[in-house]
């Protein structure tokens, strides 16, 4: 490139200090990095919610404490659902690489069912807590609890919407390059939610029961 630049300037025309020929970027080449940076920013949102819970988590306002509310068996079941959905999404990725569209769809569907089971158990837990009067308005502990766990649940919900969308896309257009890229983004999103859940069950549930 420097040769071309110097040759042009020698000829007396306008010197060019940048690459002239169009630099070809294949479509979606930077998507994975961009999506990773989005996940990192999402990580900061959760870090703030964890910090809020860490500060307010002990302020019960003479209301119910973690020991009165949490059922660890239910949380263990919930954690199992999310962990299983992580490995089944991994299987979906492996079959996608082998271009087996039927198996990919099957694993995606199983992942979706595990995700749905997770959400169902979480909503049952929330409904049970609210029925007992442990609403988000009851104490600072409960406000921060519902915000943190609810935000995670909302992420899973949108992950499920995305999953169904991609299954329809894959059914209609097949495992095209674009669809593979989208499925890989969702894969990162899904595994990331599992990582956040590790923080939730450790800090909120397990340490809450020890308090």
């Amino acid at each position, binding site marked *: 490139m420097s040769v071309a630049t110097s040759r042009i300037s020698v000829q007396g025309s306008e010197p060019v200090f940048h*690459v002239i020929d169009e630099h*070809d970027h294949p479509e979606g080449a930077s998507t*994975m*990095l961009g999506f990773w940076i989005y996940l*990192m920013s999402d990580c900061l949102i959760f870090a*703030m919610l964890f910090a809020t819970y*860490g500060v307010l988590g002990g302020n019960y306002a003479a209301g119910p404490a973690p020991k009165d509310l949490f059922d660890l068996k239910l949380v263990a079941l919930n954690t199992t659902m999310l962990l299983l959905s992580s490995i089944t999404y991994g299987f979906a990725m492996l079959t996608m690489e082998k271009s087996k569209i039927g198996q990919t769809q099957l694993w995606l569907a199983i992942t979706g069912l595990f995700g749905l089971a997770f959400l169902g158990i979480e909503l049952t837990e929330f409904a049970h807590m609210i029925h007992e009067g442990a609403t988000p308005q009851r104490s600072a502990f409960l406000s921060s609890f519902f915000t943190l766990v609810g935000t995670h649940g909302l992420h899973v919900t949108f992950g499920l919407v995305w999953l169904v969308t991609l299954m329809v896309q894959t059914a209609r257009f097949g495992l095209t*390059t674009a669809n593979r890229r989208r499925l890989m983004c969702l894969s990162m999103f899904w595994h990331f939610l599992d990582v956040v859940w590790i*923080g939730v069950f450790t800090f909120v549930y397990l340490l809450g029961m*020890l308090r």
Partner: protein
Amino acid sequence: MTTDSHALHSNDGHGHDDHGGAAHGSLKSYLIGFGLSVILTAVPFWLVMTGTIADKAVTALIVLVLAAVQIVVHMVYFLHMNTRSENGWTMMAMIFTVVMVVIALTGSLWVMHHLNINMMPMHDMSQMP
């Protein structure tokens, strides 16, 4: 020269691989990750639910360490984190995020803990008019 190499990139479907793109897992790595995750999840739940260790502080410490290990396991085996993918930029972004998270978390907890300690005693508030 540049045109040729980029033509090559766009011809094969996995152009991003040549740019040092996202790594892919194998069945073995997924299963290893899953096995480790199951153990690292089951042990803390078992510790807390049965109360095997009488000292709660020790239990809490073990639970926290296991969670940290499990997060690393998920990062490596499920999210395929390594120093090579995207020419190291994913690792850079993650290190930056971890630094931010540590500053925000420890800072918030530290400052708010000291605010709590230095607060006026709360039990007199109910007697006030």
